[in-house]
């Protein structure tokens, strides 16, 4: 899967905006988006929020987890535990990137937030690599990892699957004379 596809899926998340135009309720296939009145917050999907922001028709309200203290707490917890901590949004990496690239003026302390999210990401990916390594070196058949996000899985997917395939190939050498199932 392409990281661009993961980003596409991330854009379905809802975010609050404050429009500066007015529009009646619109009926889309994915659902209804409520009437837009200037100055009143309304929940829309991220793709629409970014489009409106680029046309300067709205102001994006920062997500409640995009806050320095909250992210610092998550980062500390991530560093302490060996397992993956549950994080506020399954698309935290993409949402951070999208919102901070397009709407950095609406989000206070954008740079620190970006750094914190990158730290959290690095810690999680390092843990993922560690568990992939122990998975392969102990030749286990089954592993369970909770609280992983799609983007993290995606970066490691092709490498891990290929190496597991190769390991299977080499392991099948140990049992000679096994017939192949066709």
């Amino acid at each position, binding site marked *: 899967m392409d990281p661009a596809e993961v980003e596409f899926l991330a854009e379905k998340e809802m975010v609050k905006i404050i429009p500066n135009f007015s529009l009646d309720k619109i009926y889309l296939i994915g659902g209804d988006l409520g009437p837009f009145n200037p100055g009143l917050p309304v929940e829309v999907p991220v793709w629409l929020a970014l489009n409106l922001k680029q046309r300067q028709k709205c102001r994006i309200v920062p997500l409640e987890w995009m806050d320095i203290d909250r992210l610092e707490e998550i980062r500390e917890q991530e560093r302490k535990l060996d397992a993956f901590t549950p994080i506020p949004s399954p698309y935290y990496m993409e949402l951070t990137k999208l919102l901070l690239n397009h709407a950095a003026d609406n989000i206070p302390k954008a740079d620190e937030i970006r750094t914190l999210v990158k730290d959290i990401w690095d810690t999680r990916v390092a843990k993922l690599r560690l568990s992939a390594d122990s998975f392969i070196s102990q030749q286990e058949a089954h592993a369970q990892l909770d609280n992983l996000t799609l983007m993290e899985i995606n*970066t490691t997917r092709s490498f891990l699957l290929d190496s597991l395939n190769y390991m299977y*190939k080499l392991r099948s050498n140990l049992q000679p004379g096994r017939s192949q199932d066709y």
Partner: protein
Amino acid sequence: MDSQSYMPVPPGIGMEENFFSLDDILLSHERLPCRTESAFPRLGFLEKSSETRDIPEGTKMEMPLWLAKGLYERKRRVLSLELPKVYREGWRTVFGADPTVVDLHKMGPYYYGLGSQMLHFDSPENPEIANTILQTFIGRFRRTMDSSQNAYNEDTSALVERLDCLERSLFKAGQSGLNSFQLVLAACSCVKCGSADENDLIRDFGMEVIDMSLWDGHIDLVISLQPQLSWLGRSIEPIFRPRLKRTDTTRRHTRQKMSDYSSLTDKCVQADEKKTSINIESSDLFSSVPAIMEG
């Protein structure tokens, strides 16, 4: 995602080879030392050192794998194969001690593949060979994973040169995953032309962004200098502009740096108009660009 007119066939599973796999075909060209158990009449030309017309019984010669596999038969003793030295006792203990130090590319670029094929030849050491190959792979896995996932836009030839072909394909998979992720991460919107991301920039301007990574909240942009330098100034400005959100104390500093930077872009534009190439000191570019970001 890659649209190719040719779907490469992967190498086969374990002791089987895929007929159409290029890797397996190249693998089967490896020469193995063997000893003939019966005479081969009128085939003297196969062995360069002998002048006789036939190959007598008991000759030691080298044969490619495909020929050896075809001629090998347990019951009618036509050929007996010796293991290449990489699979023998001595090297097996080396692999057991520390698999990561060995240069597997030098040991025959198809260490794992050839090892799997050797198991066809009924040597008494077969289980140990199979086990050694597996343990070597597991031992080297960590290093391959780390090097492939952390080398973004660098020269990887030093990392890859000690890897066997199987590990190289793994390395490539890891690198492509990393590259596509970084590309998406670094995509930014161009205020001028709607939302253009890095792919558009590369497509439109041939620009190669070497490293666009976030570091301590700043963005260090190192751009490779291509012959057409004029678009350099024009194209990177829109990227920078949305990033210039500054506090009051740094505004003056930024303005100073912006003027440095705009003189640089002016140089580029002039050069383009005069159709001359200009020498930009790398210190010019690299000092002004990151400084803007720190501002």
